[in-house]
């Protein structure tokens, strides 16, 4: 009798039947650990300028699933396990989105810096123009404003 499992395993190996491994999460701890890892990545992405609004929403959804699982853990283990698995898959999905978010965030940060540089550049140019041409423009305007004036000999 003891050799029965060994025989089954041997049979499976010889027959080439693939062993199916279910990776379903059965504990809230594993799901929470995945969420923590995903959060660390999200936090890193944010520090690199990424917009993380969507990822935060998704992780909160995963946390909600964990809470729902915990609430029914005693009464319905199977459903609770499904909730944990869903939470884990959301966390994994979030982690997959991170590189793209970082790339987008860095592009946005560069653009923002370029906009500031352009703004300051335009202001500097305006300063130079004001310095060089204020007098000329001012007196030209003054002349245009007073073009109908006539000059009379003083008494």
């Amino acid at each position, binding site marked *: 009798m003891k050799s029965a499992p060994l025989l089954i395993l041997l049979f499976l190996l010889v027959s080439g039947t693939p062993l199916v491994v279910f990776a379903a999460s059965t504990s809230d701890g594993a799901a*929470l650990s995945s969420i923590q890892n995903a959060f660390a990545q999200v936090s890193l992405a944010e520090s690199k300028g990424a917009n993380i609004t969507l990822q935060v929403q998704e992780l909160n959804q995963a946390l909600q699933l964990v809470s729902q699982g915990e609430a029914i853990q005693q009464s319905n283990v199977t459903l609770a396990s499904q909730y944990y698995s869903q939470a884990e898959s959301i966390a994994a999905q979030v982690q997959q989105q991170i590189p793209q978010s970082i790339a987008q965030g860095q592009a946005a940060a560069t653009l923002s810096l370029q906009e500031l540089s352009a703004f300051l550049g335009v202001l500097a140019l305006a300063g130079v123009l004001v310095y060089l041409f204020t007098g000329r423009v001012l007196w030209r305007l003054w002349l245009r404003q007073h073009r109908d004036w006539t000059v009379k000999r003083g008494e």
Partner: protein
Amino acid sequence: MIEDQIKGVLLAVILLLGLIGAAQYYYSHTTSEPFPELGILGPNQKIGDYPTNVLAGQNFTLYLYVGNHEGHVEYFNVLVKLGNNDSVVNGTNGMNAPVLATYRIILENNQTYLEPITLSLPNPGQNIRMVFELWTYNTSTNTFTYDYIYNQLWVNVTGVV
């Protein structure tokens, strides 16, 4: 001369605009005084009308408010613990008491959370100290650390006759 005065005013305006633009850029990337918020509101979403007497095992509703002004995304845990007159809230580990419930929330900077929470106290007792502790996830240590921020409610729990 009037020409120099006008030139001076225009250059000052340009300088001011440059400073405002640069300051706006700088301050949009920094938070001067980072802080989180924790609040427990009564059943009417106000600071008040808190339950003082509840029946053991009977549900009652409060509102949990959490705000993030830390300057970056945060992962918060709010632990609800049950203590008594002698319980002390420690600055490092919070109150050494059993955890009744845990609420987890991730908030972006300047984001707030306000949701109803339903609690139920299992055992009768007088002057039960219900403490809500705010814990923050630390990505460096991969652990939740206690911020020494808590709210508390004192309740009497009577047994069901």
